[in-house]
């Protein structure tokens, strides 16, 4: 069997994975990047709006503290505040660094990086390139990897001396030596041959879990691999009940249902209306945001040109609020003909401006739906977009509880609390990708010569070949479809106790069926086999989502319970932590207390605002901190 030795292996080649790999290599570590797709195709490529970083290029009042506050508000104060702090502080440097690696962002008049408005961000904050920012980011990072390989070629005569990309290669198990990580087991999609990676540090950067749902903006890769690999290796996941349903996905034609319509449409002036022509978002401003959003259309419209004297239009509320509002309008019978609501930018901007600012939206609607967005409204509805939950990590290093295991980006949890703000994902990838790469490099240094030994290869091999050897079992595509329908219908945007419980029963049965799947055909590029292996991950993650959703008896961010519609302060400090046995059985969810926010951070907020989120006890802590600092 093919075997490779590395210092650090990074699983996933999206923004977080590439930034982690670049960091590990820059710190002198021999680094492998393992990705399921071709190099440069990861899901980051689909990010549209931009990367949030308080550079203050458009509004000089912006700074990290404002960004920190916006992030915490967006996450309804459930965020890991240390991550939110690091993120807000470091995002500008990470964006500027991309520019030095060749990225070409759109510019302001004075030649700086332009920044655009987005939901939940107080000031224009998103560095962007039209509406294809993710592509720019992934290409820049990809080209940075190539630049490092060229440097290595100059010195060592081998492009791959220090950093090598294993493309179309899927990891099915992390390998351990006792408690510590010692490598990973994978197969080449192209040939079906197996590989063992011998490495003391693994950075998970595998993205999200959207493929467990029918209507999703996510690609086939988003099968929760990193989440599941971490669980099976003994690490814990947090906040798995929080899933972001992006308010605006395409609703028609059926085959593209769920494909993302960027929030930039609203950031650049687009408005949401129902079948009665009403801008309904004005009816859905929640109490906690009452003083921050315009109450009339006139004020909202003035805000685009005069932000100092007006409040934002409610179309730019955080995503969870907008998604729920759209859902409610459709349920109340005020939806559009194709089952969404209207999103109109045609009456708000000149056609040429729309094509310049939103080129890929224009292209996407024209090519896929025969809709000209410069002349008519789009129809949109919520789509499963992002999982806030993920591997529980140390904020500063990205380290999980298992020695040698690190995670960054969507697969890690905590940073975004119960709801992520748009634009905070691309910056998250950069900030924590770099930190996880550095954390892994430091961990490898700390080991000295004591590299853990690879074990468990036999078991991993047996597990991976089983669907090929079985005869007459289940069709993996059917098991997958049933899981997607179940999660979509029963653990979707609005949840009820009995429905989530029902979903758990279905998942239990599907887990059984998934152990009996058959993949006809050979080992060479066999998608049926690949899906059969991915099912284990999707089912495990779905179980975590459902179990956590059942426990949290409140509504907050990306978790809305019909039977507990209010946000409850006593639940703010209760994080739900999932764990499982190495065979994926006995998924457990336990409560864990959120650590109190540092005094200098909590006092960045007004007491009046905090009183909407915190318990009386916590407010007493706030008073003590305020007193100490005054």
């Amino acid at each position, binding site marked *: 069997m093919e075997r490779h030795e590395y210092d650090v292996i990074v699983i996933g080649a999206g923004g977080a994975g590439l930034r982690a790999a670049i960091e590990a290599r820059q710190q002198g570590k021999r680094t492998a990047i393992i990705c399921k*797709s*071709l*190099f*440069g*195709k*990861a*899901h980051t*490529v*689909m990010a549209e709006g931009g990367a949030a970083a308080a550079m203050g290029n458009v509004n000089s009042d912006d700074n990290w503290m404002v960004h920190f506050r916006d992030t915490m508000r967006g996450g309804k104060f459930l965020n890991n505040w240390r991550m939110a702090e690091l993120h807000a502080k470091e995002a500008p440097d990470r964006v*500027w660094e991309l*520019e*030095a*690696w*060749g990225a*070409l*962002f*759109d*510019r302001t008049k*004075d*030649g*700086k990086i332009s920044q655009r408005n987005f939901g939940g961000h107080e000031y224009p904050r998103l560095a962007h*390139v039209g509406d*294809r920012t*993710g*592509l*720019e980011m992934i*290409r820049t990072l990809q080209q*940075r990897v*190539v*630049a490092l390989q*060229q440097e290595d070629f100059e010195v060592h005569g081998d*492009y791959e001396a220090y950093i090598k990309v294993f493309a179309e290669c899927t990891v099915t198990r992390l390998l351990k030596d006792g408690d510590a990580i010692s490598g990973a087991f994978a197969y080449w999609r*192209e040939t079906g041959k197996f590989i063992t990676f011998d490495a003391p540090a693994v950075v998970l950067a595998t993205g999200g879990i959207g493929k467990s749902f029918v209507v999703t903006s996510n*690609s*086939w890769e988003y099968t929760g691999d990193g989440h599941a690999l971490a669980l099976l290796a003994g690490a814990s996941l947090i906040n798995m009940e929080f899933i972001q349903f992006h308010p605006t996905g395409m609703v*028609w*034609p*059926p*085959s*593209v249902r769920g*494909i993302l319509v960027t929030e930039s449409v609203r950031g650049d002036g687009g408005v949401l209306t129902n079948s009665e022509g009403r801008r309904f978002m004005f009816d859905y401003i929640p109490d906690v945001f009452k003083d921050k959003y315009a109450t009339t259309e006139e004020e909202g419209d003035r805000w685009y040109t005069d932000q100092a004297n007006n409040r934002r239009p409610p179309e730019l509320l955080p995503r969870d609020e907008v998604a729920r509002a759209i859902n409610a309008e459709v349920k109340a019978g005020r939806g559009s003909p194709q089952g969404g609501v209207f999103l109109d930018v045609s009456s708000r901007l000149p056609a040429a401006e729309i094509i310049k600012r939103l080129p*890929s939206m224009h*292209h*996407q609607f024209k*090519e*896929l*739906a025969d809709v000209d967005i410069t002349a008519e409204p789009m129809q949109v509805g919520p789509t499963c977009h992002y999982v806030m939950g993920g591997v529980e990590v140390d904020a500063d290093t990205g380290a999980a509880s298992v020695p040698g295991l690190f995670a960054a980006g969507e697969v890690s949890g905590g940073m975004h609390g119960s709801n992520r703000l748009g634009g905070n994902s691309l910056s998250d990838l950069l900030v924590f990708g770099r930190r996880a790469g550095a954390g892994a490099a430091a961990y490898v240094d700390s080991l000295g010569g004591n590299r853990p030994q690879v074990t468990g290869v036999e078991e991993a091999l047996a597990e991976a070949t089983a669907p090929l050897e079985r005869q007459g079992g289940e*069709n*993996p*595509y059917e098991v997958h*479809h049933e899981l997607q329908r179940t999660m979509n219908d029963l653990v979707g945007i609005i949840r009820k106790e009995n429905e989530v419980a029902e979903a758990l029963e279905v998942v239990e049965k599907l887990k059984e069926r998934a152990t009996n799947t058959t*993949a*006809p*055909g050979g080992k*060479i*590029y*066999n*998608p*049926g*086999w690949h899906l059969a292996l991915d099912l284990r991950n999707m089912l495990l993650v779905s179980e975590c989502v459902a179990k956590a959703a059942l426990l949290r008896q409140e509504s907050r961010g990306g978790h809305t319970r019909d039977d507990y519609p209010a946000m409850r302060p006593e639940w703010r400090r209760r994080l739900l932590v999932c764990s499982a046995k190495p065979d994926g059985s006995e998924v457990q969810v336990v409560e864990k207390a959120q650590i109190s926010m540092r005094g200098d951070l909590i006092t960045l907020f007004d007491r009046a605002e905090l009183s909407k989120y915190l318990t009386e006890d916590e407010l007493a802590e706030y008073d003590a901190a305020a007193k100490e600092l005054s």
Partner: protein
Amino acid sequence: MSYKGKFRVWRGEGGEGRLEDFTVEVNEGEVVLDVIHRLQATQAPDLAVRWNCKAGKCGSCSMEINGKPRLGCMTRMSTFTEEETITVTPMRTFPVIKDLVTDVSYNYQKAREIPSFTPPADVKPGEYRMQQIDVERSQEFRKCIECFMCNNVCHVIRDHEENKTHFAGPRFLMRIAELDMHPYDVADRKDSAQEDHGLGYCNITKCCTEVCPEHIKITDNALIPMKERVVDRKYDPLVWLGNKIFRR
């Protein structure tokens, strides 16, 4: 609004293969990739196809549909009649791995041979100042989703395997133009574009531009201007004289 569509899909691996006929359900609003996925789920579970975003943003599902290079996710079934047999084959310029999946490693090799962005040593991150009008030229080329259909269609390598070693293809000649037009790139790329990467092979038939799903004007905006830059250098009498006198 659904009907039974007729598909003829190339199946095979290891240098052998054949066109296989399928009859498969087609629904309103679907694209070719949807139908390929339905074939996988119902009739041919091991049918190999690359795809990711299904929204024309990642450039993974390049294939040849009725002989034309296309993204499967952006080719709507409504562009065909219900009676038409739709033939789907892998990209021809690259070796087939299996079914519709080809070995595109040529492209990654070429990417590695183009010297990277080279900024001036004294500009620090955060200090870059560029005008929108100056970044727009390179931005057009950075819209590229690397579907590699331009390289697939380019006759220099489509019909001449032997040219692959010394021809980077439209994708990477455009990359050279992109860097050459970057306001902060200080590397000299003109000679190597011609001598190392085969810019001279391009005889501007614009096949690449025609197939580009991002509608990048590869020939007009990247390759022709790059050729002009090379020519300006080569036939500039002062440069010529300087080269004669000072070379080595």
